[in-house]
């Protein structure tokens, strides 16, 4: 593989959402040199919970206890779904690998088991997900406890408007009699009318503020078997903060994700960036790919970047398109319909604009437009108008792919991680086969 200096690499990943990050990580793990262009993506809006597949079929809203059983059903009933194209064993490996990398970067996840978990949300609802951060897992354990839900204390902070323990208790109270709530002043921020979660998270990374907060909660514990807090237990050093709370309170402590954008989103983004730095992925932040062209067959590909003085040109042997959908700007909608933004690749989409949405906006079966995206061949290469791979070494992963509705199927991270893994397998295969030195 090429040594990866300066502006050339084996794989260029366009996009830094969950799919782009996963692709870059897996490229690095396969020993491919990698440059990744783009910033943030949807990761900031994530809750830190890694969904694999929670709902299938979307129209029925059926929740699954086992994501692998759900995957099997999906493969049977919706073989065109990108997740259905990936071998479940590979998905398992990909998730393990992804979570392990996050753990190395300081963001620990509870060991993955073969089943989905239920996690408390800030609205008091339960969310079905797969990968749960260690700092939140005590909550899932409580919820799922076979012997019934034990007494629990929820604490919130005066001024933190995005999180109300009282609301959660009100929503869940009748199903969880031992759930109590308390409000305290956040130490050092007593005079601040409006609090922001990340500021509290940073403050808690200081031992002094931590001690003072623990001391405020201690007298409120009562009969609680666990303590739930908004997700503010540290940012880059959440593991230490969470451990200190559990040690200080002598009880399991769990975080409840706040409304996006939240501390867990920032944590996840930070951890993924640390993963990239540690694996030597060369990042190009705040810039975007303006044009992509290929030289020779299969040859190399040239990426032109915006946002740096004089522009920058990258040369890559393979390119992974992980530019997301509309919010990620991978897809653009206009009067003529939906296009792929960078190369104008054809997008599988409803025949007319009228068919984009169901008549009822809240229709549980979702909207056709949400399943629009790129069609790909068996090697994860997007197809051009003639049905052939648009470029021999161009691959597509993540939410830009057609035939899925990740939001309703609760499979966002699963889609990103699984497709990135599968596509990178192909990339490695193709590049290896191309006889690189």
């Amino acid at each position, binding site marked *: 593989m090429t040594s990866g200096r300066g502006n050339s690499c084996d794989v260029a990943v366009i996009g830094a959402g969950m799919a782009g990050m996963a692709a870059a990580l897996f490229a690095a793990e396969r020993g491919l040199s990698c440059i990744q262009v783009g910033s*943030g993506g949807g990761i900031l809006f994530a809750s830190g919970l890694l969904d694999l597949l929670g709902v299938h079929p979307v129209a029925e809203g059926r929740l699954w206890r086992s994501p692998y059983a759900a995957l099997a059903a999906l493969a049977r009933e919706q073989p065109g779904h990108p997740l259905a194209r990936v071998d479940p064993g590979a998905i398992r490996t990909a998730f393990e690998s992804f979570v392990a990398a996050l753990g190395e970067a300081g963001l620990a996840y509870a060991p993955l088991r073969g089943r989905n978990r239920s996690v408390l949300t800030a609205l008091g609802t339960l969310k079905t997900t797969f990968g749960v951060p260690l700092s939140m897992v005590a909550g899932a354990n409580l919820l799922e406890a076979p012997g019934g839900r034990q007494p629990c204390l929820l604490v919130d902070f005066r001024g933190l408007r995005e999180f109300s323990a009282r609301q959660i208790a009100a929503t869940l109270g009748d199903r969880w009699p031992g759930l109590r709530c308390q409000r305290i002043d956040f130490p050092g921020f007593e005079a601040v009318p409006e609090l922001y979660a990340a500021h509290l998270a940073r403050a808690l990374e200081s031992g002094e503020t931590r001690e003072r907060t623990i001391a405020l909660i201690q007298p409120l514990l009562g009969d609680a078997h666990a303590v739930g807090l908004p997700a503010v237990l540290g940012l880059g050093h959440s593991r230490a903060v969470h451990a200190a709370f559990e040690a200080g309170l002598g009880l399991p402590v769990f975080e409840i994700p706040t409304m996006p954008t939240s*501390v867990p989103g*920032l944590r996840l983004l930070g951890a993924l960036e640390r993963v990239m730095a540690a694996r030597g992925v060369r990042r190009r932040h705040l810039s975007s790919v303006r044009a992509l062209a290929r030289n020779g067959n299969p040859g190399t590909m040239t990426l032109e970047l915006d946002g740096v003085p004089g522009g920058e040109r990258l040369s890559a042997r393979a390119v992974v398109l992980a530019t997301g959908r509309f919010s990620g700007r991978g897809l653009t909608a206009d009067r003529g319909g939906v296009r792929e933004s960078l190369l104008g690749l054809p997008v599988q989409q409803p025949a007319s604009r009228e068919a984009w949405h169901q008549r009822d906006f809240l229709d549980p079966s979702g909207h056709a437009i949400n399943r629009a995206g790129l069609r790909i061949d068996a090697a994860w290469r997007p197809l051009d108008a003639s049905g052939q791979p648009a470029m021999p070494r161009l691959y597509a992963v993540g939410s830009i792919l057609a035939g899925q509705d990740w939001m309703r199927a609760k499979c966002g991270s699963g889609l990103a991680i699984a497709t990135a893994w599968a596509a990178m397998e192909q990339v490695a295969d193709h590049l290896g086969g191309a006889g690189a030195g």
Partner: protein
Amino acid sequence: MSRTLFHMALYAALALGALGLLWRMAAWFRVRIGPDARAVTPAERVGALFRGAASALFSRRLLHVVAALFLDVLLQRRLYANDKLRWLGHLLMFFGFMLLLLLHALAPVVTVPLFPGYESTLAPWLFLRNLCGAMVLIGIALFLYGVWRRRTRFAPVRGPMAAAFIALLGFVLMTGFLLEADKIASPQAFHRMAQENGVTDPAELEPLRALWAAEYGVAFSDLRQPLTPELLEKGRAVHAEGCESCHARPQSAFVSYPIARALASVAGALDAARADVWLLYLHVFACFVGLATLPFTRFYHAVAAPVSLLVDAAAPKREFSAAARASRRALALDACVRCGLCDTDCSVAPLARHLGNPTLLPSHKLIATGALAGGSLLASGHEDDALRAAEGAFLCTDCGRCTSACPVGLDLEDLWEAGRGDLAAANLPAPAQWVRARTASAWAELLRQGQSAHVLSDPDAALAPLSADRNSFSRCVQCQTCTNVCPVVAHSTDPGCGVDLTPQKVMNLLRLGMRDFTLGSRMVWDCATCYQCQENCPEGIRVADIMVELRALAVHRLGAVRNWKAPS
């Protein structure tokens, strides 16, 4: 020349000069620059001077003072380091002038006692006088060339006093040379001397005249005999008897002699017009004028600059008491020679040119600082000057390059800091401060009344193109990420010094078309430009860049409705 007239004029000039000097030097203890200077009385400042002088005299610092006297004052070491050409010019002027002053002007009290048998018309004095005069003239020329060579758009304010001083110096030298030339060429002067020496017999007089015509440059119009060698030989014998002890051949006066030759044809006419008398009057009285006005021309630097250098040497800057510092600053106003070397080196000189505001430049800032201390900058009608001076003062980067460039060794950074203190006291602080005087909405209301409300005019677009272009912020989804990563909001836990908005709210005001409500906002002004918001914004909005642009816009738009008035 009448002795009484001479003496009267001399003493009058001396008295005037001395009084002027006292008056000007009193300012060193009177003028207050900087808030800390207001806390000390003139008496304390005089006391500090004596204490400082005493402690310097009786300590090893004395060595520093002596070294400074030679290296800094006499040899101009600092000027040498910064501008060799002007150093040469200054050295030529200085030594030429000092030698003329000592050996020529003060001959009765210096040269005569030191050199028995001194006569101004003997060698080497003829030559030396010309040499010194020429040194001064060449020095002036070099100096003017040096100034011209380093000319910039904003020359230091040298003023009519600087030109008057150079003109007077030139005038004294020119009249001196002319006077000497006239004396060389003048037949009348020859006859007067011959008479005084008793050479009246034509048999002696004619050969002497022949000799002086041939070898001493006298322009006789009535020589009766051809200048034969025998005649000259005779003349030489007469000369050896009566004249030689006082008169050397004037050719060594390498400036005056050629002038005398050039004047030969009009020598008679000059005699008839009594040129020797009025040239002498002009020469001497020009000197007296120089003496009397010394404290008020740029020549005053010859007093103030050495004092400044020696004071500097007497105590390290950091050890100055508040009283000493106060005097030191007032002294700096006088000691500045307006050389402009600081301006050439100033870090913000390109910005000064761009903004068209010379008060960014140190030599101009020094004057403005003085004007502020003296009150003239705050007089009504000078509002614009005051505002510009404030702009200049607060754009200084404190780089200290002016201080190292200054040949007089002025501690300019201290002066700038003091000046900024005075500006703040006059309600002219840095923008980050004066904006604080009102809340963001009070500013917006002022803008509305001023009818300069939200228009995306061209100058706005050049100052703040991002905030003038909807595309740069319209994609904001109000996700709060910018606020979450903002350290300034995070550290605003004390309402007394915290921010009013958040970056996300600033972006929202822009989206709502309420840009005027952001301009005076604490958030905009307290933004640390750490770029966390911009780096993390999921929509790629250039939040921090917008913040900074809003400040530039605020300086202009709020500045326009600020309506600053000098405190009465």
